[in-house]
Every structure is written in C-alpha cells, then in structure tokens.
C-alpha cells in the first residue's frame, strides 16, 4: 500500500509542473509552473475559461497525462518511483469522471458489465455473488435505485444524468481516494445537476474522498466547494487560489475580479446591480502567443507598463487575506528583480 499516507501529507502534489503539446509543429505551453496540492477528503475547484489548462491539470492529477517537466508527488513520493503492483494500486486511487455523459460509457456493454470489469480485474470481490452484491451496492451508493432497473441496461437506454451517476459508480469500483470531476455536470440539465452534486458531496463525506472539481461555472464552483478551495487559472497558470468564501466575496487578482463581476446571476436584482469591470481588450490571446510577463497584462485594467509586461508573477500569499495570488501589484515581495 501507499507509504506515509497520513492526513498531513497531501494525497497528490504538483510541483512546478509544466506541460506542453505540439500541434502542427507549434509548441503550445498548456500548463506552466503549476503548484497545487490536494489533501485527503478535500474539495478543490479549478475554474477558468477554455484553454486555461484546467482539464490538462485534471488529467495530470488523474495520471492520464504525464508532465513535461516538474514533479508530481503522490503520497509524498514522485509518481515515477512507483513500480509494479504498487503503481497499479496508486493508479486506482486517482479516478476521473468525464464531462460528456454520452461518450463516457462504452455503448457495447451493459451497466453491470461496465462495473464488473474493474472489480474482476483487480480481484476486489471474492466470488460471483460478491461481485453482484457489490455492483448492487455501488448503484445504490450513487442513488441509482432500484439497481435492478439499471444493471442490465445499455448506456443508450439511460438519461444523461443516470449515465453520469454510472460514471461515478465506475470510478468508485476501485475505491479511489480522489476523483477528478471534469465538468461532470455541465452537460446535464439544471434540474438534474444539483442532485448529482449532492451525491458527490455525500460520497465525499461517507467515503472520505477528495474531489477535484473542474468547471467553467463560477456559481456552481461556489455552491459545490463552499467548504473547500477554488483555484482560478488563466492561460496555463494558476493566478489565484484560496478558500472558496474569500475567493468569491473578496477576490484579489484582477482576472478573478473581472470574472466574478462578469458572471450573470439568477436573480434580476443582483445581476442588474453588479458593477462590471471594463477590460482593456476583449480578446483572449492564443496559446501560441502568450504575452510576456503576466499573461493577463494586455487585458488587465490595473496594468503597469514596464512591470506587468516584464515580470512573470509567482503565486505568493497576499498580506491580510487568505488567498495566494500571482500579481506583482499585490505581492510587493517580487519587485526588485
């Protein structure tokens, strides 16, 4: 089993992780210098606009992608150092739930089969009766009741919400410690969304799971991660991270502020009285042409020439608040180099 897994060591830690992709001969730095640790039984939300690298971060955490440079520590030990059966155990501890309920389940198998594959492969059940009992339990666990109505069905016979629940159950078969939920509810209807989030919450409490919740919807992030943390990403970098209430009510980074101000809310009064922040440009730069210095500087309303376009701001604590922020105007310690 995994060494050193006490509640004080983080489940997984990214240290200075970079990741790049090559598309048609152009190198795209999708992730740059990501530092992030996820503790057991914690909820972290990664939010940001498309192309900000949140999905890539999720996949690196889930072990589906490697980093181009930097370190990924699992249970305090670099991931590469795990070998053999230990590696397999480690792999199973980190699971992912995808966005598209129509693509996340193989259309060729019944739900029962889909759940039985990992159980059988990793010998997590004693015998056939145990296997069937376990499948039944898992379906109950994700609120797919009565399980008898689901287990012999094919994915196309289920609704989008039901499929997402099956995806969650499949991730739970291997008793993970962490689940990356990559936009797991953005394609299901509003009315179904909340109940899936509640199921995830309950699972976190009952099974002691940590959840990395990736979303572009700030209001959803706030609702889901109120007791956890939110990390805001922009063009491959983390620009601000901190406890959810502070992130929502007292954002520091100009980009976070712009986001919070820009989101419409399901309340006519609040949304119409919101003060919007004018950006200096509406266009988000391409990944192939990330601006020098702070990537946000061409759009930032607090842009300081000669500083923002030169210094790449590191993620540092800001005096007086709980967040860490990557902005030279807020973390004076960086000035001088």
């Amino acid at each position, binding site marked *: 089993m995994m060494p050193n897994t006490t509640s004080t060591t983080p489940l997984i830690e990214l240290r200075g992780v970079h990741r790049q992709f090559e598309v048609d001969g152009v190198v795209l730095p999708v992730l740059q210098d990501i530092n992030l640790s996820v503790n057991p039984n914690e909820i972290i939300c990664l939010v940001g606009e498309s192309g900000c690298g949140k999905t890539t971060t999720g996949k690196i955490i889930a072990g589906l992608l490697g980093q181009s440079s930097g370190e990924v520590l699992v249970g305090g030990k670099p991931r590469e150092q795990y070998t053999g059966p230990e590696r397999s155990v480690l792999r199973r501890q980190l699971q992912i739930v995808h966005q598209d309920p129509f693509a*996340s389940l193989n259309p060729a*198998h019944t739900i029962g089969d889909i759940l039985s594959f990992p159980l059988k492969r990793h010998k997590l059940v004693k015998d*056939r009766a145990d296997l*069937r009992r376990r499948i*039944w339990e898992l379906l109950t666990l994700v609120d797919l009741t009565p399980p*008898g109505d689901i287990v012999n069905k094919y994915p196309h016979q289920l609704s989008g919400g039901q499929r997402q629940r099956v995806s969650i159950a*499949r991730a739970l078969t*291997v008793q993970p410690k962490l689940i990356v939920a990559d936009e797991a509810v953005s394609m299901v209807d509003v009315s179904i969304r909340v109940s899936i989030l509640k199921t995830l919450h309950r699972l976190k409490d009952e099974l002691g799971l940590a959840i990395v919740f990736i979303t572009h919807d700030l209001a959803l992030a706030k609702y889901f991660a109120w007791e956890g943390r939110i990390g805001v990403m922009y063009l491959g970098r983390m620009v601000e991270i901190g406890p959810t209430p502070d992130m929502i009510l007292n954002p520091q980074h100009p980009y976070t502020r712009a986001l919070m101000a820009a989101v419409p809310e399901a309340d006519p009064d609040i949304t119409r009285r919101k003060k919007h922040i004018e950006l200096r440009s509406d266009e988000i730069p391409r990944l192939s042409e990330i601006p020098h210095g702070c990537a946000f500087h061409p759009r930032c309303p607090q842009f300081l020439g000669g500083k923002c376009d030169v210094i790449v701001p590191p993620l540092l604590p800001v005096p007086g608040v709980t967040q860490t922020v990557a902005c030279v105007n807020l973390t004076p310690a960086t000035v001088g180099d």
Partner: protein
Amino acid sequence: MIGVSSVGLVIGLVCGGLALALGIYLKQLRPGITGFIVCTIAGFGCSIIGGLIALFVMAAVIISHAYVDRQDPFTSRAKLEEVDFSETTAQSTMRRLANFGNTVRVSWGALVRNKAGFIGFLGVTFFLAMSAFGPLFIEYEGSAQFSRRVDGARSLFQAPSAEFPLGLDWQGRSVLSHVVYGGRILIVTSIQAGLAATAVAVLFGSLAALMGGWVDGILSALANFILTIPQFPLLLVLASVIQFTDPIQMALLFGFLNWPTLMRAVRAQVLSLRERDYVEAAFALDLGLWHIISREVFPNMVSYIAVNLIFTVRTALYGLVALVVLGIVPLQEPDWGVMIFMGRSQGALFSQEAIWMMLGPILAIALFQLSLVLFSRSLEEVFNPRLRSGL
C-alpha cells in the same frame, strides 16, 4: 470449406439433434426445431466448423427464448438484504448465453427489417448454398459431350431447354453445372483473401494507432506507398511474374494488395476511439491494454471491420475473375472466369445460341457481387449496440 459430405451430414444431424434436445428440455419447441434445421444444414454444408458455430448460436438463441421470464436477482426491486446474489457457474453461463442469444435475435431482427440488406443476405446465402449443396443435385460435366450435337447444327452450343436450363457450352456441356461448380474456388479464395487482408489491416492499424512513433510512421508510409501504385496493373504484373498455381497464393496476394485502405481506416478509428472518454476511464481504472483493445475498442469496430471485409471479398472476387478473363493466370475449370474467357475466345458473344454460355457466369458474378454490396449496407445496423436492450 464448402461442400457436402456424408461426414458433414452426420455432424449436422448430431448438432441439430443437440439443438432440438435443448429446445425440448427448455420447453422451447419452435426455436428448438429452427435450431435443428439450421444446425443440420450448416453442418452438412460446411462440416464441423459450420456445425459447431451454428450449434453455439442456436443454443444461445434457444436459451434466450427460455430466459425471457426467468427472474434474475439483479432485476429484483427488493432491498439489498433480501436479495440472494449467489449464482452457480451453470446459471451464470446460461445467463451469458441468453444474453448473446438475445443479441443474435435483435441483430436478426435488424437484418430482416432492412429490406435491401435482407435481399443481399438472401443472395449471399443462395450462392453459398448453391456451392455447398449444388453437387447433391447436379453432376459436374468436365469432358466434351459430342453426343448432344443437334442434327444440322454447326456447333455444340445450345440455348436453354428443359433438360439444360442454362444451355450448353462449346463442348456441349451443361452451363448450369459449370455455374454451380465454378463459383466454389472463387468464393472460398475471395473469402480467404478478405480474411487475410482484414487480419493484416486490423493488426497493423491497431499497432500503428496504439504504439505511435516510428511503428506508426513505417506502417503508415508503407500503406500510403502501396495505395499509390494502381492496384489492378500491379496485380497484373505480379500475377504474370509469380505465375500462381495454388489458389491460396492468390488469396495471399490479394490480402497483400488490399490491406492498406482498411489499415488506414482502422488506424483512424482506433485513434479516435482511443480519445474516447470511456477508453480514458479504462486507462484510469488500470484495466490493462488487452482489455482496452478487446473489450472497449474492438466491439465498437466490428461493424466497420465486417463491412470492409465484405468490400475486400468483392475486390478479390473482381480481380480473380478479371485475371482469368484476361488469360493472365493458368486456366483451371470449373471457374466462372474461365467460362467467360472461353466464351470470348470461342466467339460465343456473337451468336444467339452461344450467348447463353456467357450469360450464366456473367449473371452469377453480377448477382453475387450485388448481393454482397446490399448485404454490407445493412451490416452497420446489425452490429449497432444501440439496438440492444439488456435482458
């Protein structure tokens, strides 16, 4: 591979009897009888391979009929504590067979529903049956039959008559007998060619897509290169150079020439399937590469591969006949291509009686090719997992 024999009949009867017994045991008389007929015919026509495959499929179908009302603890609406999940191996096997049988029934339903596809299926079955069972009814006439010359006729050619439904050829032999016997080697060789090409294509395509890097580079470049050379001229050159004598060599040659198209398609398909979320989830669950290929990727490519298999069979059949008709490969009777070749060289095209000698094989080739096309059109539906419903 195709053709009746007394051993085949015994095998067929044994398999059929087993199916029937199963039907009676499970009180499913009608599927039991259907199973008896299908198994007997398959065993008789294709011997042990056909018999066993038919027996397996029909047994599953019979069991699936019996299983419709069986209460599986899985489908119970009771509480967890009240459900007894234990199940013997026999029960579990039965349940799986029933599931498979259900899939067969659903696919059969899809096949029957698609009119054109079903016509194609019937056509293909007809030609296979003709090749397998034709010898039971029609004797092959290999040597000239001078005794059949009609008084005053300039040649032995004859238009169809009650005695010779497709007429007589230039040696006075029954055209019907040549049509019945002339497709056997052609059909078997084309199927072998199709299987060879498909096997190579699936293997190379999956390898290229899953391994990437230089393996992908080399295999893709090779495929592209073979595609650049016009197939038929290359076939002509190779066939004339190598001088084939054994049909299996021809099959391998066609396999060699036809894998690139399918390989590229398989590669693209595997690449796109590899990007699917459920495959990614399987990686995260550490289900192993073999599981991912065989259980996650392959089932979703079956229809695709089947359609392409038929396409390759068609291409091979086309080429086999064309090579013979052009006189590039040694002539061996009986063969539809030889009939056309001889017809042309004997000037059969230009006389009313003689035309029949060519019309028989021409129609046989055309109808068989057409049946294959129509049948392949419906395969996509037959293999579509979305039509399935759990038991």
